[in-house]
């Protein structure tokens, strides 16, 4: 089956990103296909490369990158949600006249159309969310 996973929560305040990551790994090892992971609302912080977790904790951003590399997974961050929260790639930094960028490698900023397309193409769509 083809799956899409949607993450609505920040890794700093919620267990949801870790649940989502475990879910992705479990579905891949069961032989299913992961079409896309879509990060929305505070989920965009999963792609902030400046977030530095303590060395004895999971660095979720790196874990997503490793997953993307190993299984060629499309990691898409909602562009409007990201800009609002200060997660920028080079193109958006130029557009909004900012000096810095902080979008981690392997993540791409794109629109909600990517979520719609994923919902159409996937057999199952699951959301991992949190409050706040």
């Amino acid at each position: 089956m083809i799956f899409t996973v949607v993450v609505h929560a920040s890794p700093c305040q919620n267990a949801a990103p870790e649940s989502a990551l475990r879910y992705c790994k479990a579905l891949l090892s069961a032989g299913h296909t992961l079409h896309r992971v879509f990060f929305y609302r505070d989920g965009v912080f999963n792609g902030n490369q400046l977030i530095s977790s303590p060395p004895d904790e999971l660095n979720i951003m790196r874990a997503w990158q490793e997953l993307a590399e190993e299984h060629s997974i499309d990691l898409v961050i909602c562009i409007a949600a990201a800009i609002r929260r200060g997660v920028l790639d080079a193109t958006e930094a130029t557009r909004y006249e900012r000096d810095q960028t902080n979008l981690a490698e392997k993540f791409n900023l794109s629109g909600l159309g990517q979520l719609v397309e994923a919902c159409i193409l996937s057999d199952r769509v699951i959301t991992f969310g949190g409050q706040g």
Partner: protein
Amino acid sequence: MTTLHTLNQAPSNVNLMQSCVGSLQPDDTLLLIEDGVYWLLNTHRAKLPAALKIKALRLDAQARGLTPLVSEVDLIEMDEFINLSVLHNKIVSWF
């Protein structure tokens, strides 16, 4: 048409559980994840309809020290979470 419902909020968020239970159909399954696993404790579970098909993620129950206190049959592994996702037609997340 069956639905797998996941719920990740502790029993302090009673309104969320009420909305979830109110939308459950007879063949749906409720899977408790993250802080939602606290609903498995007897005092909280007693407030839920007895006929409800409830499961909880073992990892999340273990992380919160609940495994000695809850029924073993209710706990599932991640691969079973994937199976449930496949067996139901839709997945609705309550958070």
